[in-house]
């Protein structure tokens, strides 16, 4: 597992209060992890904070799974 994946999963576990083993890369935030649209706003803010990246609204809307988040961060972090 990449370092980014590790840190993303930790944030997801903390924010959504889900078991760590449920947070696979394929897991969808809404369908699999019980998040709602506000939780995703909060997660995106936490990712921005953790990785010092900016995730614009149009990019945030495309982040549906854990892998989407990891990929965006890996491709955009400074």
């Amino acid at each position, binding site marked *: 597992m990449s370092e980014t994946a590790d840190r993303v999963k930790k944030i997801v576990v903390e924010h959504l209060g889900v078991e760590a083993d449920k947070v696979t890369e394929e897991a969808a935030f809404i369908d699999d992890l019980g998040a709602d649209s506000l939780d995703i706003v*909060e997660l995106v803010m936490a990712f921005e904070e953790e990785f010092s990246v900016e995730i614009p609204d149009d990019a945030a809307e495309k982040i549906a799974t854990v892998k989407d988040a990891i990929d965006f961060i890996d491709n955009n972090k400074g």
Partner: protein
Amino acid sequence: MRRVVVTGLGLVTPLGGDVETSWKNILASKSGAGQITKFDASDQKATIACEVKPPEHEYGFDPNLRVDHKVQRQVDPFIVYGIDAAGQALEDAGLMDMTDEEKLRTGCSIGSGIGGLPGIEKESLVLAERGPGRVSPHFVHGRLINLISGQVSIKYGLMGPNHAVVTACSTGAHSIGDAARMIALDDADIMLAGGAEATICPIGIAGFAQAKALSTRNDDPEAASRPYDKNRDGFVMGEGAGVVVLEEYERAKARGATIYAEVAGYGLSGDAHHVTAPHPDGVGAYRSMEMALNRSGLSTADIDYVNAHGTSTMADVLELAAVRRLFGDDIATMSMSSTKSAIGHLLGGAGAVEAIFSILAMRDQTVPPTLNLDDPEDSCEGVDLVPHVAKQREVRAVLSNSFGFGGTNASVIMKAV
């Protein structure tokens, strides 16, 4: 009108995370006061408060028992306390397995005096220091006063009236009185009613201290809340929640519920005088109590215990004078105490928590003490204020008073069934 009884109780207080622990400590004359630990209060005028204790404490509160981790992260502590107390009350009433039809007739009226002040303070600083894009998306619904009722209704599927009283320090009493009327008027069969508060944060303490409302007896916190004592100098801020299950009497009887008490009378009034100071003649307090008494059909001779608003401020003696006027000669045979001497002032939670203590006084035929009453005001002569230690005595009916900023007054009378 339909009769309304209390069939479940829930408490989160500075002396316990549940009803029996809180009550046992109240009767043992313990104090929940201490130095503030939630933040560095060293630059505050008042550095003391009655905080709800952490889970590892002998009488701490464990938020994980009834409140989801995710909800805890999103909402202010007053909502966490309120959800937990509501859950306790439902469990106590044996109402965890209601049918959908019953849930349609079950509502919530759990209010707060101030709401999510710590979160408002924190997110305002985020806004100022880091800009609007860093404000939490849960900011609004995590701070709103009616979100205890909202969260509880979602958690337990309660689809009846969903309401929240906001009347400062009389919130808890108004919540119970108003919710009882919703049942009496057939809007619901069951109501979760009460109040919660959690404003021990820098701006909360500073605001009340600047209004000269708080005790600054910082070197002796357990002695700071001392209602009726000549040396009192203000209230000690408390936090927590109290929620009762109110239920239509015939329904409660038919299902064999434990009936703690009947809500016999409810009175409410406005002082129309001053934003923080009560009317010097106690006229609002008097009319509130008188209305509750008239509704109850009882006489003052039937009321054995008064749980006073008694905040440990100058206003204590005004309330006492109004009680004396109402009770006349019957004041000699009743007992009256202020449990704020032990748990501080829970503001919007106070009325509900104190109604529960009043009910327990009836259940156990024991009235709770007024701590620190070493040197009573002269005007207390001839009134049993239950100094220092709890007292066993007959308790057939109780009166609980709550008064709030803005000159709002509420009185609830409950009697044994």
